[in-house]
């Protein structure tokens, strides 16, 4: 039994969000917005009803819920589907299925670390905003300054890393994580928590670092999806010793299940 619903969401606005081709899609979808929790995602039709190509819905993390009626998605334009979406005029209505899956499960107290690589930062905005008032550090890495999305206004401390040093630290976001973890007082480590989303090598490294430090970590995974409802088994992969579906058992998993 899925907690998702399907609506025809109105595309309110398409806004560029980084110097590279990243756009923010703002959608009017009150029922989905109200039910959404950080780390969940939606399946969005790549075009209006009746369009047969591209055929499949696209999975996108819920980037922000700026008000109770609105969803924001942060979309990297990387292929035919996202190109089509970025070019749609406001007013179009698109099928949207959501909110989908198991989101992040941060502890009620203790230090909170968020690690985002590239577009993986998308769901961490929603998470950071839901944790406003608590001690949150966002460690955010991207290839270059051009690929960074502005974090202005986020209610947390933000540290940046870029591969070429064009913004923040030169290097990987996981290097920021290694430092942040070693700076954690040993007593606090058992209470601490990491939420990470990004490329798999980054997730693997983050999982290893957190295991060493004894910090609980949750990872948001990706997989090519057809249904987004748990029905097709398209997104299933071995996690914790059995096939689990990224769409319905995830997309957020405990790091020790993913990298045992």
């Amino acid at each position, binding site marked *: 039994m899925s907690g998702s619903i399907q609506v025809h969401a109105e595309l309110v606005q398409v806004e560029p969000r980084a110097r590279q081709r990243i756009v923010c899609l703002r959608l009017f979808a009150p029922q989905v917005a109200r039910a959404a929790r950080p780390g969940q995602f939606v399946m969005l*039709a790549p075009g209006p009803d009746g369009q047969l190509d591209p055929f*499949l819905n696209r999975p996108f993390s819920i980037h922000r819920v700026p008000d109770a009626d609105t969803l924001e998605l942060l979309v990297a334009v990387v292929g035919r589907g996202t190109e089509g979406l970025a070019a749609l005029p406001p007013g179009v209505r698109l099928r949207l299925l959501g909110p989908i899956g198991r989101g992040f499960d941060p502890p009620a107290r203790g230090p909170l670390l968020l690690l985002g690589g590239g577009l993986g930062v998308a769901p961490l905005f929603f998470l950071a905003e839901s944790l406003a008032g608590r001690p949150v550090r966002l460690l955010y890495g991207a290839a270059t300054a051009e690929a960074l999305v502005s974090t202005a206004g986020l209610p947390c401390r933000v540290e940046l890393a870029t591969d070429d040093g064009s913004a923040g630290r030169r290097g990987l976001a996981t290097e920021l994580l290694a430092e942040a973890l070693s700076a954690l007082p040993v007593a606090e480590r058992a209470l601490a928590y990491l939420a990470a989303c990004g490329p798999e090598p980054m997730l693997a490294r983050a999982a290893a670092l957190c295991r060493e430090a004894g910090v609980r970590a949750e990872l948001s995974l990706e997989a090519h999806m057809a249904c987004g409802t748990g029905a*097709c088994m398209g997104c299933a992969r071995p996690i914790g010793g059995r096939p689990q579906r990224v769409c319905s058992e995830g997309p957020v998993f405990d790091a020790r299940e993913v990298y045992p």
Partner: protein
Amino acid sequence: MSPAPLRPDMRVQIGRLALKNPVMVASGTFGWANEYAGLVRLDALGAVVTKGVSLEPRAGNPQPRIAETAAGLLNSIGLQNPGLEAFISQKLPFLHGLDTAVVVNILGDTPEEYARLAAALDGQAGVDALEVNISCPNVRAGGIAFGSDPGAAAEVAAAVRAATRLPVLVKLSPNVTDLVAIASRVAATGVDGLVLINTLRGMAIDVWTGRPRLGNAIGGLSGPAIKPIAVRAVFEVSRAVAVPVVGCGGITGWADAAEHMRAGAVAVQVGSATFRNPAAPVEVEEGLERFLGELGLRSCRELVGTVEV
């Protein structure tokens, strides 16, 4: 006072299997139906066809298992399923509670395995019919071999038929030279109906990395792209065999279902379309009913095979 327009009679009979309407969901595209509870009016479906069930659990193929193609997709799920026992204990109770027919899709590596599955499901409350998958292109042993040889296909069909009192549908593969020959042999075993088509064998390659877009390299093609092949298969087979034919392949809207029925299908299955719109099967049924009304037909059976050639 003019009489209220009659709603067309949507009931269909596929051999001994009676359905309240001709629109089913296709195996493997609707899970075990519980995934769609709350999202879709399950009771509005003519039948739910389950994901394929084997004797033992199967873990399926490596990622990626889905690759989009022009107006379609390739999949190489690899028939992941929890196995017969877990199906009966964990999946069947929910299905049994639905006010719609439940068709269990079965697959094995030998005719004996098929027979054992058929026998085991015979007594189970909640199972209304079996659909024999001899056509899945993903599993090396079994699968493609049975589906592409008339003798082997008939052997599996006969084994299942003998092992169960349930209505039996046999789902055929389009990846063959002479589908009519296979269909005729299978029909002669006394099964209740044929379902066609399963996916076509296909492949896609990432030109930048040089790697196949599916972990399993080759997968099954489905979606609107294959509709013309499916309609042709339904047309040819339904004219050649006496048993009812169920059409499947590329149906996204009611008009596609009507096309399959005009070609000769007594009922249809909606597959990949559900991925983009979970409500697609229900919308197909509703649209079909309206269409029949507009044509002035009193029963969906009147549309079957009406193509004028």
